């Protein structure tokens, strides 16, 4: 049941998002791509705080938000564990994030006279790489 996660988190001071949000976002991503599976144990607050060189308060806040949103569960004395999150929930969250980026692309394309066909062709090209 419990297994140390193979996690990749890289915080960036130049990222406009606050640190705790960067942590929650990257943990959500890890869950979505399968680095963290349901019932995997998350690193302890102290472990993560030392490894990422941020204060424990920041990690605690991140874990608190993750729990509130249903991504993780905390069992007193045992630690935090990845919850059973539906793939659909993860998919729709990522889609929302992509919507923002996509909006930017679509609007930019419109301004530069790039057609939908051009974008679709580009997408195909990338997928085939």
């Amino acid at each position, binding site marked *: 049941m419990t297994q140390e996660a193979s996690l*990749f*988190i890289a915080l960036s001071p*130049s990222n406009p998002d606050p640190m705790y949000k960067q942590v929650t976002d990257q943990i959500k991503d890890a869950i979505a791509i399968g680095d963290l599976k349901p019932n995997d144990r998350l690193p302890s607050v102290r472990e993560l705080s030392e*490894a*990422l060189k941020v204060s424990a308060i920041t990690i605690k806040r991140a874990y608190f938000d993750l729990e509130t949103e249903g991504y993780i569960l905390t069992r007193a004395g045992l630690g935090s564990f990845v919850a059973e999150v539906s793939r659909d929930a993860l998919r729709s969250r990522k889609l929302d994030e992509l919507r923002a980026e996509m909006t930017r692309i679509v609007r930019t394309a419109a301004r530069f006279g790039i057609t939908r066909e051009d974008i679709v062709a580009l997408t195909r090209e990338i997928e085939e790489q």
Partner: protein
Amino acid sequence: MDAILEARNVEKQYEDFSLSGVSLEVRRGSITGLFGPNGAGKTTLIKILAHQVPARAGAVRVFGLSYGDGEREIKNRIGYVAQDPPFYVDKTVQWTARFVAPYFAHWDGAHFYGLLEEFRVNPLKKVRHLSGGQKKLLSLALALSHGAELLILDEPTAGLDVVYRRALLDRLRTFVADGERSVIVASHVTDGLDEIAEDVCILQDGRIVMHEDKDGLMSKWKWIHFRDGALAPAVVGRLSNLRRQPFGDSGLTEDFPALREALARALSAGDAKVENAKLEDIMVSLIKGA
């Protein structure tokens, strides 16, 4: 390149320290930052450039003139602020202004007193009663009030509070905005001067270990954060300051453009992230590496 100041092979010998073979140029219209750890020789070099201390060897040319026969003209056209500016300490600020006025060809008293007001330095106070920061501001006011085209500053923000520091940085930016005037400033990297410097010069143990324009520098030095195993060993081998952590590794590269292709796959897969290095990181890396 139009250089407002040129130094060639400057050397200086003290008992426990020496400057050797220091050469540099300050471009017209630019701010050159001279950085380095304590004891690297920044102050000594600055003093030599401003003709406060004689060099043992080497040549310094300012505005195309040498101090040998152009000292008066050069000193009329440069503004120098020392780390601990010397004054007649028992005299007032006003007395000091009256003292210097006849020596400068383009002394602007109105401008000087305007600056004093802005810097909140009381002209009637004796210099010995000014704080360290105020003395610096006084020295700066003098440097800016005689039509100088080149400012030579030694840690001008040390001892200044945040508001004045920001005002000073803005003022320096304005100073060079016409493209004709320049600034060379010795400083600790953490004092904010790296924000405004266009050219970066790093001094260590009396030698220049780097002299490049900041944009170029920043485009080459980057932190790569990567998932363990996501990068080929050959690529990892080219990173310095490697940090291996449970949740991701990091390394510093000094030639990002060369690695960009090798990193492309990992970057697009989300297994690697690139982050700008700070000037501090570059300095620490150079110093540790040496």
